[in-house]
């Protein structure tokens, strides 16, 4: 395991921010950390980076105990925590020089050029950071995090403030880091679809505890999908669906779309049945209701906590 967190706890006064948390992150995977605001995600990541001292528990990174081998551990981590803050009165280049040198980056100048190219900031590196947009700072943050070629990259809400194009680029970059460079990435996000798209495994944290943890595909397989079908004969389509026990809904005012709840395995069966019955199908959409899943999981955890009390 790249990261092994055992029985990690942290309290702020009477508030238990992280409560006996166990997490494992395997090599070369993108690990998603999900949870509502105040769930303990950021506190966990900060403890992982030794910004906050845990009350109890242990953290091992690359097999090294963070409490005793802090320097060696941090040498192998690149991160953006919360938001990419830099020295505003310095240029992007000078910021990278400072943080690159502090990360003991070999061939710093060359690495800076490569990273600027990678994040698309080439040509703007000599401008003061105070003139950068949030998206540019986020890119600079990524360049800084990757500068010393770390094995583990921690990104806390990295898509915040990025435009759609930036989000797509970031997503591709994370996948490139994992697939082509063999990096391990821990990603916290409140955008559930983000996690689904790029994470291999995930943990949902609520009230400082991991309420569910596992492979994303496996966790979400049993979740129902919202299936939408576009047809020119809605009444007939609904009637056919009823023969295979599906209650669809919809009408012409929806642009000829009907919708129904089904599982992932039901999708080909539904399409096949409608086709065989002679219903014209012009479009099919199947989206997973991650929000429902997320709310159900966190609500269940809260209920169990209430029951315990």
């Amino acid at each position, binding site marked *: 395991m790249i990261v092994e967190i055992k029985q990690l706890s942290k309290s702020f006064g009477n508030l238990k921010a992280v409560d006996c948390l166990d997490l494992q992150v395997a090599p070369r995977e993108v690990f998603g950390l999900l949870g509502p605001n105040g769930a303990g995600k950021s506190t966990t990541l*900060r403890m992982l*980076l*030794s*910004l*906050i*001292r845990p009350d109890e528990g242990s953290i091992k990174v690359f097999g090294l105990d963070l409490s005793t081998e*802090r*320097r*060696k551990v*941090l*040498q192998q*981590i690149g*991160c953006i*925590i*919360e*938001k990419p*803050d*830099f*020295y*505003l*009165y*310095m240029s992007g280049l*000078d910021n990278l*020089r*400072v*943080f690159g*040198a*502090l*990360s*003991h980056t070999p061939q710093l100048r060359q690495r800076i050029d490569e990273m600027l190219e990678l994040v698309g900031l080439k040509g703007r590196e000599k401008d003061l950071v105070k003139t950068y947009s949030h998206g540019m700072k986020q890119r600079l943050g990524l360049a*800084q995090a990757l500068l010393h070629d770390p094995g583990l990259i921690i990104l806390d809400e990295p898509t915040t403030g990025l435009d759609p194009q930036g989000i797509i680029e970031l997503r591709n970059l994370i996948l490139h880091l994992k697939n082509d460079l063999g990096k391990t990435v821990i990603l916290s996000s409140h955008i559930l679809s983000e996690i689904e798209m790029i994470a291999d495994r995930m943990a949902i944290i609520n009230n400082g505890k991991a309420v569910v943890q596992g492979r994303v595909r496996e966790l979400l397989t049993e979740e129902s999908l919202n299936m939408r079908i576009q047809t020119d004969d809605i009444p007939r389509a609904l009637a056919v669906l009823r023969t295979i026990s599906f209650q669809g809904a919809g009408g012409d005012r929806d642009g000829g779309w009907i919708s129904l709840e089904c599982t992932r395995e039901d999708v080909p069966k539904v399409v096949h049945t409608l086709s065989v019955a002679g219903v014209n199908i012009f479009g099919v959409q199947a989206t997973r209701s991650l929000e429902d899943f997320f709310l159900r999981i966190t609500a269940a955890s809260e209920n169990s906590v209430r029951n315990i009390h």
Partner: protein
Amino acid sequence: MLKLLHAELLKIVVKPRSYIGFAAITVIVLLIEFALWLDGQSYLQFILQTLEQSFDVQGNILNGNLVAFIILQTLIVQMPLLVALISGDLVSGEAAMGTIRLLLTKPFTRGEILWAKFFAASIYVFLLILWLGLLALGIGLLVFGPGDLTVLKSDELIIVRAGDTLWRFFAAFGIAFLSLSVVSAFSLMLSCFTDNSIGPIITAMAVIILFTIIGTLEVPLFDLIKPFLFTTHMIVWRNVFEHPLDWPLIRNSSAILLLHIAVFLSVAFYYFKRKDIYN
């Protein structure tokens, strides 16, 4: 450690605020020197008027050494405020800007980071004093020429021979460096306590002003407190221009200043090493 020190120095060099001290010293010193060049004799006559009733004062009284001494007396009071402006921001400024998160995730101990900040601040203080010395003594000697230094105190007149002044100025600058290092350590300590950039600077300035006021007021109650205030010992540089030299007093005050640095830094290290970074 050298990388950290280099980074800290780069931050100080690039930050526009760092030049306020140099600009202020330049303006004040040049202004005083210009005023003394323009109307220094009248100023001297005013100061020496009671003395001239008893003594026949001859020679180049208004010389570079006296000008440097006057400037030193004027500026030593203001310089701690200029130092607090930089040192008070070293940790809290990073916290306010959010860069503390990034800095503390680099492979250095917190102790190393704080040492680097203190050393960088000390280099800044050294350069500030060097600049003051160059302007006050260098330009002073160039414009007003050399001569014996006349130090007028409330109850005595000390004349230091021209050839005996240079080492005294170096000693005075050395003590000034020690004094300003106390201010630097104090501001750095305050800077560790908060995430607000301005708070430690204002607090450090307020404490220095308060201590200086207590030090100048002749109130019996304050006389009990004065030996424990670092500002009391910061003015010991004046004693190096006395004859004979009161070495025990200079040594004692220097030791107390060093003790203050040790205490302030110890508190800063203790707190900073245990501080959780939330912002």
